[in-house]
């Protein structure tokens, strides 16, 4: 941990007040059921979500390959907190609040760029890439720039997946790191490059966007392009899918021989990680199931690896294929608005037009995202109705939503009680 990071303070529970609406909605909420209306629509609940979840949890930013060189930076907006993530001259990742220590202006306005120094465009206060203030003008003799470094944000890279945490004392992420690393390391995410990006805004609460992602109950009716490759089962022993079950048994033997882990990881309610096969004959998430890039990732030699599906609360899910990686990141914009950013990666040495085609590689998830946007927006409209009563989740198809809502309610309770670590993480 860099030296200027806030030091871990002795545990001293800091309790918080949730809004009356949030407390009432929590009381009304029933396990195994969709959440009450206020959780999806109410501004006060949304503020509690930001404080209890997005300002406290580890958030996925993007792939580390987006920051290959010293001075490369990306920016993102976490509710009201603009953040810069960059690579410093020693090659280390750093993150800062994107706000000048002079009068608070944002320093970087672009979504991504390269800068030797972080210079406030207002009065040119100039910071080096470690956040140290190095140049100011007209500040007088008793002004000491050492007192005004940029405020750091916790940042870590898990095999090339960059996460930040805005909390002073971040929750533990090492369990996730240890669990996911053997699954994704063979895909060598750091040696990839972004070749396509899409950012869409869904007129839906962030939890509806996540819930929609956490089940494939809706896939058969909504996602013809995705189902060219994707099997709808969520667990390898899902008995509803006899054919897929047979493929899984065969693939499990092949992947064991390749030393590629595939069994579902016990991530409790915090995360999920599993390698699942694609449908018979499909290698990739393309319209015809054929590989999206000729160059396989890392040192892989087997194109038929299905995908490592990873999910982590509260804002990210991923597919790691033999030749492509796809990251999904959500950021809430309001009670009924959520940004969804998708990036597609291939091997950094792959050549556009010869090894891959951007449209072909992205079209399945562009179509699927558009369908999911419509589903989430329809859902938002329906839960906003005064007549809405939360219905039961399917224990067979929607167990991950049961996990998610359980985790979410627990987050709010822990925030109120001042606990950092999840009480249900060990389940």
């Amino acid at each position, binding site marked *: 941990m860099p030296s200027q990071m806030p030091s871990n303070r002795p545990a001293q529970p800091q309790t918080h007040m949730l809004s009356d609406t949030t407390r009432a909605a929590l009381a009304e909420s029933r396990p195994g059921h969709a959440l009450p209306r206020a959780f999806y629509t109410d501004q006060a609940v949304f503020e509690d979500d930001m404080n209890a979840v997005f300002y406290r949890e580890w958030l996925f930013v993007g792939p580390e*390959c*987006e*920051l*290959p*060189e*010293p*001075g*490369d930076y990306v920016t993102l907006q976490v509710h009201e907190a603009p953040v810069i993530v960059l690579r410093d001259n020693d090659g280390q990742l750093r993150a800062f609040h994107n706000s000048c220590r002079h009068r608070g202006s944002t320093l970087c306005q672009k979504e*991504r760029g*390269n*800068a*030797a*120094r972080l*210079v406030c465009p207002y009065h*040119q206060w*100039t910071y*080096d890439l470690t956040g140290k203030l*190095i*140049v100011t*003008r007209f500040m007088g003799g008793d002004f000491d720039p050492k007192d005004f470094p940029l405020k750091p944000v916790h940042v870590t890279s898990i095999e090339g997946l960059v996460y930040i945490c805005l909390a002073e004392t971040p929750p533990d992420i090492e369990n996730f790191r240890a669990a996911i690393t053997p699954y994704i390391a063979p895909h060598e995410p750091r040696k990839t*490059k*972004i*070749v*396509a*990006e*899409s*950012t*869409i805004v869904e007129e839906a609460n962030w939890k509806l966007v996540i819930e929609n992602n956490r089940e494939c109950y809706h896939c058969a009716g909504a996602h013809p392009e995705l189902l060219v490759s994707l099997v709808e089962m969520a667990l390898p022993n899902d008995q509803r899918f006899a054919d897929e079950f047979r493929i899984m048994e065969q693939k499990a033997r092949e992947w064991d021989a390749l030393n590629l882990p595939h069994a579902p990881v016990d991530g409790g309610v915090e995360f999920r990680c599993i390698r699942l096969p694609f449908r018979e004959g499909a290698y990739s998430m393309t319209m015809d199931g054929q590989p999206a890039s000729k160059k396989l990732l890392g040192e892989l030699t087997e194109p038929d690896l299905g995908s490592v599906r990873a999910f982590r609360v509260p804002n990210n899910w991923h597919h790691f294929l033999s030749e492509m990686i796809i990251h999904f990141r959500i950021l809430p914009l309001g009670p009924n608005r959520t940004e969804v950013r998708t990036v597609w990666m291939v091997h*950094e*040495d*792959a*050549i*556009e*037009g*010869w090894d891959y085609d*951007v*449209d072909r590689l*992205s079209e399945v998830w*562009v179509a699927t995202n*558009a369908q999911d946007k419509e589903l989430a927006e329809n859902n938002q409209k329906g839960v906003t109705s005064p007549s809405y009563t939360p219905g039961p989740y399917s224990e067979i198809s929607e167990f991950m939503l049961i996990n998610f809502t359980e985790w979410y309610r627990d987050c709010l309770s822990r925030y109120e009680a001042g606990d950092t670590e999840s009480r249900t993480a060990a389940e």
Partner: protein
Amino acid sequence: MTALNPHAFPKRAVPVPAIQEIALEVIEIRRETADIVSFTFGTDGDFRHLPGQAVALNLPMQDGVATRMFTIASAGLTPGSFTVTMKAAASGHATQWAHAALTPGTRLSARGPFGHFSLAFHPGEPLLLIGGGSGFTPMMSMLRWLHGRGEHVDVVVAQFAHASEDLLFADELTQIDREMPHLHRVDCVSTVPEGSAWSGYRGRVSRALLRSMVPDLARRRVFCCGPEGFMAEVGKIHRAEGGDPARFLTESFGPTKAPAPAEPTEPVAPGTGHKISYRGKSFDAIAGQPLTAVAARAGLRIPTGCGEGQCGTCRLRLTEGQVEMHHQGGLSARDEAAGYILACCSTAKSDLSLEDPA
């Protein structure tokens, strides 16, 4: 929805290997024709190049090191080695030396790879790879690349040589021709000695000849390399047939002298100084004065911050000329390589053209 945005990312869609100093060892020498030899070099590290790129060899001759540029003949599909196919020109002291002196095991140094003369940047187009003499070597590089990757592109390969015994890579071309169904190969020689047989094209390059060799010339993206007159003539013919000049690419082939580092010119006194053009104005540089000050005297304010090369606020693009610059880290290596300068700590060393950054 934000459009898919494939060209705005930090790592390039066509990865161009970084230019580097390379230590070489000759590992194989192969005679191609009476005056053309192929040298295969092993490199330290995993040197790689795009097909069609060039390399500068430092030839350690008795009277000093001669640096010469050569296009690379190998495909670039196997990192750690490359091949230069070199003609010993009648007037080429350095290439004659190389033919005589380089033997397996000889160690020398090089710098590269250079250039953007590569089909890697132009996927999905019908191609004509046309080369004259040893100018055919980058065509062979690109054809070997297509063949090695198993590409099924529509490609015509045309080789011009003095006589049939001067044609390069004949056996390998025959082999590749068998294995690439969409390849059309044509050879043309300018003379056929009496008593010998030749069934290919004959004559000097002309519009009628080239049209008979490549009837759909105009629709192809052309990579052309050879003597200056040859490239000029093929370019004119491509255009005359209706081809788009933007789709006609040439490479001057070796040996040419490698670009020498620009000599700094002496500073000159005020009044006799260099001209600076910026924002539509032209004004004189002042010796020893930073560009921010000179521009200010001409009534042009460059945005500034620290005034000492730290903050980068005064970043400009230098489109022509040379400056002496002493910044203190306010310009990233990437921006500097891309032609940016910091005006507050730069003085003119030649006539300059400046632009505000995009």
